[in-house]
């Protein structure tokens, strides 16, 4: 099912969707969105790319094995939890940088935490879908 329409569309959609996922991630603190949703959107974008171009291309695009995103994301979230410990606050206290950064908005440990969630969600979704895809004989591989 290597349709030209799907390929062309996904070619343009992929960067847009990835940017959109980050947009959702960053606006999460103020408007509907957040790391979980952002991660799902990013994962869907990559799955779409896999449907259009096949597994090898999708893996090459991702560079790293999706499994490596799991410890990376978990450590980011955990780091966000322990940073306040060094400042003398209890575990998971939200700390914020006083001035907003351009585009992203306020910077703080909660954002770092959400970033971790974002990566874990991408990692989990892609790990499961890619593994399932590889073990089944389907026309997209």
């Amino acid at each position, binding site marked *: 099912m290597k349709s030209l329409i799907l390929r062309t569309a996904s070619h343009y959609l992929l960067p847009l969707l990835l940017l959109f996922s980050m947009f959702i991630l960053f606006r999460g*603190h103020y408007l*509907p*969105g957040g790391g979980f949703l952002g991660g799902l959107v990013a994962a869907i974008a990559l799955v779409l790319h896999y449907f259009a171009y096949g597994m090898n291309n999708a893996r090459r695009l991702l560079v790293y094995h999706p*499994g490596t995103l799991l410890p990376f*994301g978990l450590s980011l979230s955990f780091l966000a939890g322990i940073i306040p410990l060094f400042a003398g606050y209890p575990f998971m206290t939200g700390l914020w940088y006083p001035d907003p950064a351009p585009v992203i908005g306020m910077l703080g440990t909660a954002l770092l935490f959400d970033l971790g969630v974002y990566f874990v969600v991408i*990692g989990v*979704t892609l*790990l499961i879908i890619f593994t*399932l895809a590889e073990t089944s004989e*389907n026309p997209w591989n």
Partner: protein
Amino acid sequence: MLLAVLFGFIVAILLLPLGKISKGKPSVLLSLLPLSLFVYFLSYIPAVQEKAQIFQYRWIPSLDIHFSFHLDGLALLFCLLITGIGTLVFFYSSEYLKRQNHLDRFWGYLSFFMASMLGLVLSDNIITLFVFWELTSISSFFLIGYQNGNPKARTAAMTALSITGLGGLFLLVGLLLIGSVGQSYSIIELTQQSDLLKTDAAYIYIIILIFIGAFTKSAQFPFHFWLPEAMQAPTPVSTYLHSATMVKAGIYLLARFTPMLGDTMEWTYTLTIVGGITMVYAGIQSLLRTDLKSILAYTTIAALGIIVFLLGIGHEDAWVAAVVFILAHALYKATLFLMTGAIDYSTGTRDTTKIRGLAPYMWPIAVAGILAALSHGGIPPTFGFVGKDLIYEATLHADHFSKWLTAAAIFTNVCLVFAGLMVGLTPFIGKKPESLTVLKRPGVRLWLPTILLGLSCLILGLFPNWVDHSIIQGAVQSILGTNAQAEVHLHLWHGFNTVLALSGLTLAIGIGLYSFYRPTHSVENSLKLWEKISPHSAYHSCLSLGHWIATKYTALLQNGYLRYYLLSILLFLIGLFGFEFFSSVNLDFDTSDFSSISFYEATIALIMLGSILTVVHANSRLVAVVALGVVGYSLSLFFMDFGAPDLAMTQFAIDTLTVVLFVLVLYRLPKYLQYSNTSARIRDGVISLCFGGLITLLALAIIQEPINTETSQFYVDNAYLLAKGKNIVNVILVDYRGVDTLGEITVITIAAIGVYGLLHLTIRNKKKELPKQQ
């Protein structure tokens, strides 16, 4: 002090990366760990004689759990035994286990055990005491099963863990009961509330639970059978855990709790009776065994019985006897174990019917063995003699039944005399048979610790005043509590009196028995007939019953068909919900203030109904999957309509991915669908409708309840002020309930790894199968 206790754990963890070193020659340096601790604790002797030392370290203040260490006489005695014998055992093991596999693990477990044991005897907080108690059980499990290639060792490890672990659970409940009655977790504070505890209605349950914990750990009848089985462990481990230290943890607990809970009829009678039965029973068993370690195991049980018995008699004489006997037993039994290990190491056998005349090949071991045998039998001038005299002194001065108690003590001691000579003397005298070959002679690291321990039995016998004030008196004081002042003077020679006459009688019978009788294999084999009615076989029956039930139950519920899993979960929920609903919920709902159904809602509901009908009547899986997707999307439209955009977006994304997953899985399913028959469909339909109906009722019932908005109002008020966010849902996820989210992402990570592992396992299996098919 905290460092001293945790030192062993730190070393155990360091051995993970540095394990290679511990496999070679430098492993002997590891004995510096217990040695330094031994010296450290020795330095406390003068201070502890003055008053008990207390060290407080906060751990979980909100639960009143602290690392509070209480170094008094009793704790000091045990600390010195743990580190002193530990030093020799570490030193000994470095040669005994040379060139074994997984040595790094062995050293890790051993250091881990030592640290847990130190923590156990030093803890003043009963919760940390319990934690250390369990850690000793766990390290004992690993050490018994150290030779993990041997199925017997594995079974023995399991038996020991299940018995001591089970006892540990009882102990935990007992300790929590004590804590709730006494309103404290500190042993010192609880001891001051002794009267309150003893008069409480829960007292009887408390002591039953504590007893089960202590008796399982200290191998009292009928829980004794794990100890002889645990002799599968390497001999240094048996020396250390299963004779000198760990099995005395139960004794320690009883002694420690005596001032708090003791001195009641229930306490003294139970301990005397259980200890008495154990010592007599194990004494008889030790007469019939032929394996050196087996004899030692049963005499250890007998000795533990004696100590429990003495603690039960319950006056100062008996407690002095118990403390002296703890020390004497640890010294001579450790010697005999190390000696057995050396014999096993050089000849490869432990069979007493074969081993003779080894003295010329290993004279230091022989000297140590004979000294320990003398101490074991209570023959002057050894420390064992001092101990045995005190036992008779205690039984003669008992308040009730003193004749019977003395008779039981004499009987057990006769058995001990015999067993001591059998183990410590027989292997070295006579002429070495042709069949016995000495493969290698024990090196210095084997004989040095053995002879040191052997000599200590003699030296302490000659100079008992070296330890009476410094160590024994403090330990007795701990058992006495603060009401009385302990005064201990030990002498080798008491003059001519009843006690001496009884000692002489014991020796005469024991030596007489030794000169006429030898255990043989046929006697030992005939014992197997009795095992059918022993507690051991009861344990095995329980175990196989458990396996049988688990197998049946698993076959019934976990039958491997996803549809049945779903069915049983739903049926269970329907039963539970349904019962609760119709018994206690008012089903007369007030629908007057419901808003009317809008055009959009009706449309979405119709779409959902239509797609559900499509799913049910679909002719192919693909159609069903897509139609299910439509149901999901409609649901997210509902969320949208009711003002939950976060939820709607997430539901939308999740449904997309679910359809993708389904489609990928479709290719793994069989090509041709075998549709379920009509009756199965009707059954499924009825169950689904029931479940859906119940959920609807549940939703209606929830709406009827007045909603408590306090919590949500807090979030609304504080989301921006405290967490600098306007999206409350997200603020809850990443800030207020951030730890929950951290837990959740960990869980989904584990789930993903599980899926990956399962699927890759099938890939690998397929690759293996492929060449065969070609």
